[in-house]
């Protein structure tokens, strides 16, 4: 964030800064909170061309993400080959947004020098980075040479039809997509593996049967049929799915020690009400009948409530696979 954004509250005059060739000031506005200002500053720096490249690369040393994103955008718009090395380094950054922006910027640099770096990013763990790499490669006129490259390129472009058409060559790529953080992508990968019907996909599909997402598990089940996975292996795969069941012991102990909270743990809205009623009642009984009588009256009740919470948790139906 630029201090002017906070204290002055007025829009900086980017045109004036451009006329004055004030590169440091323009770079400082690349970190503005306002995307419009960021874009205007990046465009102004782009119009200045190569003279701005050096200061921009030097400014990349900052740890502020917004500023780095702005700088990368500006470098991309300048399209200077000198920025290749710096952008190459950024494709390995920890932040997926930085990697994404770097891949977009690499696509704006003419000459095909970015292709090897983009090919590496095409296998990134983040779908945004993969997509940007594929789009940038497409822009650079890249034509995949091997089936593996073709598969990664199609996966990056989210072109599932072409990926499926690659048949067995796409299986390793689709297998790796089965571990993508996006459940929708995992679902599509499982569906594509089913459409290919290769038995090589069997182990990955069995693993996907234990996925946390219900639809991924179902797609993996359907795909397993197409990939000739022995049906007797499927139930064991499904058994590995995460269980979201409440623990009867926890519910029982909570309800015994803090009556009502066990019900709250089970998602009953009135649990907290019982808890509060219990506190109030305990205080009043304590006041009028003394400590020993209070426990004598309430202890059996707490046992009943504890057992009840344990019992209803035990009887709760298990979530279907």
């Amino acid at each position: 964030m630029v201090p002017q954004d906070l204290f002055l509250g007025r829009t900086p005059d980017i045109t004036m800064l451009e006329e004055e060739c004030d590169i440091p000031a323009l770079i400082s506005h690349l970190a503005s909170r306002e995307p419009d200002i960021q874009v205007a500053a990046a465009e102004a720096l782009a119009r200045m061309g190569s003279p701005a490249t050096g200061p921009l690369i030097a400014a990349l040393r900052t740890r502020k993400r917004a500023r780095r994103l702005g700088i990368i955008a500006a470098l991309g718009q300048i399209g200077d080959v000198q920025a290749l090395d710096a952008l190459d380094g950024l494709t390995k950054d920890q932040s997926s947004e930085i990697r994404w922006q770097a891949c977009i910027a690499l696509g704006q640099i003419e000459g095909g020098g970015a292709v090897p770096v983009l090919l590496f990013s095409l296998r990134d763990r983040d779908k945004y980075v993969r997509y940007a790499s594929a789009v940038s490669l497409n822009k650079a006129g890249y034509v995949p040479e091997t089936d593996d490259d073709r598969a990664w390129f199609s996966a990056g472009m989210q072109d599932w039809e072409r990926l499926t058409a690659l048949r067995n060559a796409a299986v390793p790529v689709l297998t790796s997509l089965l571990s993508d953080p996006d459940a929708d992508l995992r679902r599509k990968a499982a569906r594509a593996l089913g459409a290919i019907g290769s038995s090589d996909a069997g182990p990955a599909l069995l693993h996907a049967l234990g996925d946390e997402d219900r639809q991924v598990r179902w797609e993996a089940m359907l795909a397993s049929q197409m990939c000739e996975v022995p049906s007797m292996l499927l139930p064991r795969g499904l058994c590995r799915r995460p269980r979201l069941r409440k623990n009867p012991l926890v519910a029982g102990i909570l309800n015994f020690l803090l009556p009502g909270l066990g019900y709250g743990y089970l998602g009953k809205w009135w649990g907290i009400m019982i808890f509060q009623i219990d506190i109030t009642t305990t205080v009043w009984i304590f006041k009028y009948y003394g400590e020993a009588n209070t426990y004598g009256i309430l202890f059996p009740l707490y046992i009943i409530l504890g057992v009840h919470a344990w019992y209803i948790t035990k009887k709760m139906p298990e979530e279907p696979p």
Partner: protein
Amino acid sequence: MPLSDLLTRYPADIRNLYAVRDVPTLIRFMGHPDPKNRTIAVDTLTDIGAPAVPALISALRSPRSYVRLGAIEALAGIRDPASAGPLITHLQKEKHSELLCAVIFALGETGSPEAIPCQVHLLSDNAKYLRLAAAVSLERLGWEPENERDRLRYRIARCDWDAVRKAGPAAVPWLCDISQDPDPAIRSRVISLLGEIGAGEGCRACEAGIRDRDPGVRWASVLAAMNCGITPARMPLFLASRERTGPNPAAAGILNFLFLGLGYNYIGKWWGFPVFMAYMSVIVLAQLATSPFLPYLVAYPVTAFLGLHTYYLARRISDQG
């Protein structure tokens, strides 16, 4: 890990058990904490073959689900037609979805025609995994549908939606049967198919779909409704009578009336709890200063008003979606 795993001692080398045909110990191994050992135990029992069948049938009564799963897998591997009867009996008793699925697959492996009637019956089960398992299992048993009705049920179980659509109005009753599937994705698909087929018999299922808990199913039903003969004027009425999934307005009102703040907390306002703590502190201090009941007489008219406020807030929340 179950407590019994800590108390059970397993022999060091499972492979020696095959040489001595120690079936009881191998059965115990099927509940071993290490999945690899469980698989080895199942494979070893499968290799032992028919002599292990009686013990495996007894193991179907084990309280431990992994032992039961292992026994089912081993029986499927042995493929003894004599195990079909006990497996059919177990089908009625088993509670775990995955194990039910395993039993159905195992029945297909036994090759016994005795298993066919119960599998055909399962083609219309409410659980999609069991329907699919029954269809796969019947195929394995070499079953051929005797009539169009069974053929359609088989196709629905295999999720062969294109074939179902081509069957036209004949498929409608069977689609209506599974229109209450626990999986919203299946419900949504079924309703869309009913709309595509466009027969008036799907009207009831479509009406139920408009009142569904899941917004995706509701929308699919609205899109399909016209083709199913539901007039547009009726749709809002059905939609309005749907089960609301948001917070319960009465619960929110009661909570806020009795324990000011907890109602706000219940509808997702973070500041509900601080309000509750402040309210309780004021009440306790007032009770100490005056009498136990006077503060409530003053507080309740105020909390009644705020209870109503929460009630209307919650109603607005539960109306969304």
